[in-house]
């Protein structure tokens, strides 16, 4: 199926048969927590990135921490790989099963243990949905800030694995800024706690290292999150621009004026034209780019800030400016942005979402280069952009029934990611490397740096059984990728400063 990433699942083969592993697991788990018939395990063959599939021979769905511990111990004893999975909404194949491994689903860990308005924290299990935390905290006027677009479905455990962001993360931070403590079962079946409800924990900041580690360092069974007071009021300005450059400059000017907007998103014309018929959010489909810029706080504060934002946009040449009149309209403006992915699915049989992050000053160049690539690969691409933090989501539209289109889409995606790295950015802002971007890791990092990642992995998981063969490419993989990939030792933008 996949031209660029051929999962190499040959080594780490357990010497034990599936039947033996099943037998061992039946000793430690009730029968209803184990799935092994193909019709039961098939739904787990991929996560939100369905290009990458592997049928797991065994799926376990433990209900208690002691069951997770038992599964880890058995798998370690039998040298069986373990892939943890939350809600399966990930977009990088991070939860793609191992063809000879056990898929450890945490869906049954769905309890909210406590919501404490005095400490402004909640203690939750990893299978709790992101939005469910804010819903539980709402009666106290509190909420959990990171809001990935998939928040109705994605689980907090998956958010920890990916260090998920969302449209409000410029002001309120990523998962790493909003999780205080995690309880983790290690590959040895030991339980450790990282972080603390105190401002810090003794020793190294292992919590910061653990968040975003894509299920490769341990399995989370409990999470303490920080809750913050819900602002009394929020409003959004929608502004149209006649060029991407002008919109980018407007973003720069807002931040230079000392404003940190609660949300700041850009969509290009193809994206608005794609979304508008679907959501009817009132987007200006004639504009080359639109910005959505949100202010939150007290009513007075918002009024003051919205005025300044509007002024700045007009000075930067906005051709239209519209402020949400009420909460319904604010949500409608956002609905278009949050539904960009489904809208892509509506106008194209398939789409491939990229996740590079760039220093914002290179936005116009990068979007210009992507436009050229559309011709080169003969595919269309719509761009939505977390403008405040530089995280770009090009949506490459293709048709998977046409085999050459799949290959072109993947090459197009790889070219975009490498461009992001060249301008001083990164492969992935919030979706993770997973299986999908493992080859491009060879481009962003030197062999020594990749070896340091492997060293970190060994420190947490000496036998290398947790989500193996993802994120950090081996030497052999990089060598192979280097061969088929023409660099010619030349960078596309030799005049760009790189750091």
């Amino acid at each position, binding site marked *: 199926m996949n031209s660029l990433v051929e999962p190499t699942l040959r080594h780490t083969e357990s010497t034990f048969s599936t039947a033996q592993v099943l037998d061992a697991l039946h000793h430690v788990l009730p029968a209803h927590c184990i799935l092994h018939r193909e019709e039961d395990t098939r739904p787990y063959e991929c996560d939100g990135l369905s290009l990458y599939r592997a049928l797991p021979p065994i799926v376990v769905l433990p209900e208690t921490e002691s069951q997770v511990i038992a599964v880890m111990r058995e798998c370690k004893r039998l040298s069986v790989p373990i892939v943890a999975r939350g809600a399966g909404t990930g977009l990088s194949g991070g939860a793609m099963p191992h063809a000879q491994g056990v898929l450890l689903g945490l869906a049954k860990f769905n309890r909210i243990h406590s919501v404490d308005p005095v400490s402004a924290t909640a203690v939750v299990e990893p299978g709790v949905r992101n939005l469910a935390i804010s819903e539980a905290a709402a009666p106290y006027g509190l909420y959990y800030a990171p809001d990935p677009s998939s928040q109705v479905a994605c689980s907090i455990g998956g958010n920890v694995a990916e260090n998920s962001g969302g449209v409000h993360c410029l002001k309120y931070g990523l998962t790493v*800024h909003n999780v205080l403590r995690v309880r983790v079962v*290690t590959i040895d079946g030991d339980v450790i706690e990282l972080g603390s409800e*105190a401002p810090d924990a003794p020793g190294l900041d292992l919590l910061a290292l653990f968040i975003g580690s894509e299920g490769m360092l341990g399995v989370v069974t409990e999470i303490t999150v920080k809750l913050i007071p819900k602002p009394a009021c929020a409003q959004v300005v929608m502004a149209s621009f006649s060029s991407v450059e002008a919109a980018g400059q407007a973003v720069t000017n807002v931040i230079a004026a000392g404003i940190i907007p609660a949300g700041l998103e850009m969509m290009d014309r193809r994206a608005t034209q794609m979304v508008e018929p679907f959501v009817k959010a009132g987007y200006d489909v004639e504009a080359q780019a639109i910005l959505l810029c949100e202010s939150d706080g007290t009513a007075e504060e918002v009024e003051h800030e919205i005025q300044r934002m509007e002024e700045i946009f007009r000075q930067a040449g906005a051709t239209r400016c519209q402020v949400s009149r009420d909460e319904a309209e604010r949500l409608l403006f956002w609905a278009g942005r949050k539904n960009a992915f489904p809208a892509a699915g509506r106008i194209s049989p398939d789409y491939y979402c990229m996740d590079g992050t760039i220093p914002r000053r290179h936005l116009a160049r990068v979007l210009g280069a992507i436009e050229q690539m559309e011709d080169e690969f003969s595919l269309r691409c719509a761009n939505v952009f977390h403008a*405040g933090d530089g995280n770009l989501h090009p949506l490459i539209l293709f048709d998977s029934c046409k085999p050459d289109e799949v290959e072109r889409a993947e090459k197009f995606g790889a070219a975009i990611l490498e461009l992001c790295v060249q301008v*001083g950015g990164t492969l992935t*802002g919030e979706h993770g490397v997973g299986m999908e971007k493992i080859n491009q890791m060879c481009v962003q990092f030197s062999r020594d*740096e990749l070896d*340091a990642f492997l060293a970190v992995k060994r420190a947490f998981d000496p036998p290398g059984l947790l989500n193996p063969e993802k994120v950090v490419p081996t030497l052999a993989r990089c060598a192979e990728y280097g061969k088929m990939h023409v660099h010619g030792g030349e960078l596309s933008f030799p005049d760009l400063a790189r*750091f």
Partner: protein
Amino acid sequence: MEFVLSELCDQVMTAHAGHKPLFVCGGGSKSFYGNYRPVTPQDGHCRLDMTAYNGIINYQPSELVVTVRAGTSLAVLEAELAEKDQMLAFEPPHFSESATVGGCVAAGLAGPRRMTVGGVRDFVLGARLLDSQGRLLSFGGEVMKNVAGYDVSRLLAGSQGIFGAIVDVSLKVLPKPFEECSLRFEATQHEALDHFARWRSQPLAISATSWTALDDGSSGAQSRAGANVEGIVTVRLSGAPPAIRAAKASVGGEELGVEQAANWWMALREQTHSFFKRNQPLWRVALPPTTPVQDFGLPTLVEWGGGQRWLSGDIDAHAIRAWAQRLGGHATLFRPAGGVIPSDGVFHPLAAGVAAITRRLKQELDPAGLFNPGRMVLEL
């Protein structure tokens, strides 16, 4: 490669070849912190002096990011940011004019604004590490969102140089608040903690809080920490004018003059307040902020909404650690009496599982045990 940097790499490779431990040094402003041993030429240890490698590499105010060489003076960096009305929001303590950015990140200490904006690691976007083989490894980058590979650069914040020398670092910066104002009123410690808890769940523009005893303990040996000791709550508000007005009405109290307020928060941040000048051992206790008042019979100073409590005086290390741990926190002997490091070190012992991972990380990333031996964990 720049000459200064290649010299540093050479020094590391020489030390590695000669099996000589290296002590990574910036301005020495925080050399009192951690299990530090003075370096003497006789004991065969070497200093890796980072101060020559200095300067701002890239500052993009509109992208809220600055990349700085480790040896850069912290004061110079903050002055540069101030010119663009920006700041290091975690308000790192300098403790001396010689403080460097590398030392600031490696020590991982934050000031009064920590409770609302986060600590050092929350602002680290990327870093380059000079490792024990003299190689330069780059982690993270200059962008806000980055999940390519493990977040090693945030791990380096507060790692006290045990994995190598931080060579340069990219930090997120924030605009200075449009306005600030500080308020003050009298309250017992118990009342203060109640206020902090109430404010926590409200959208108020509070950026720092403190509680100090009216009598800072310099006059006698009475219990100074009990729930009913009279004291003063000081609160700093930061934000846009309407937010400040709203918070002022909620918090109440008497407004401090601009200079008086600046001096107050600086005295806490830099530990120049008389509380810190008692020539007694200074304990830092990090606790869940909701922890009620604990009476150890020692003068106490509360910061970070109750999350950071300082105790000044002689106290049994086992007792204070057991107490802090029971409450979900930990205790650090921040400034030992006479600067003498106790045999079990100044930091709270690690839980077994965390200690095992810490040991393996050190072995993996610095297998020769070259950098800052013992500084963070005595046996590493």
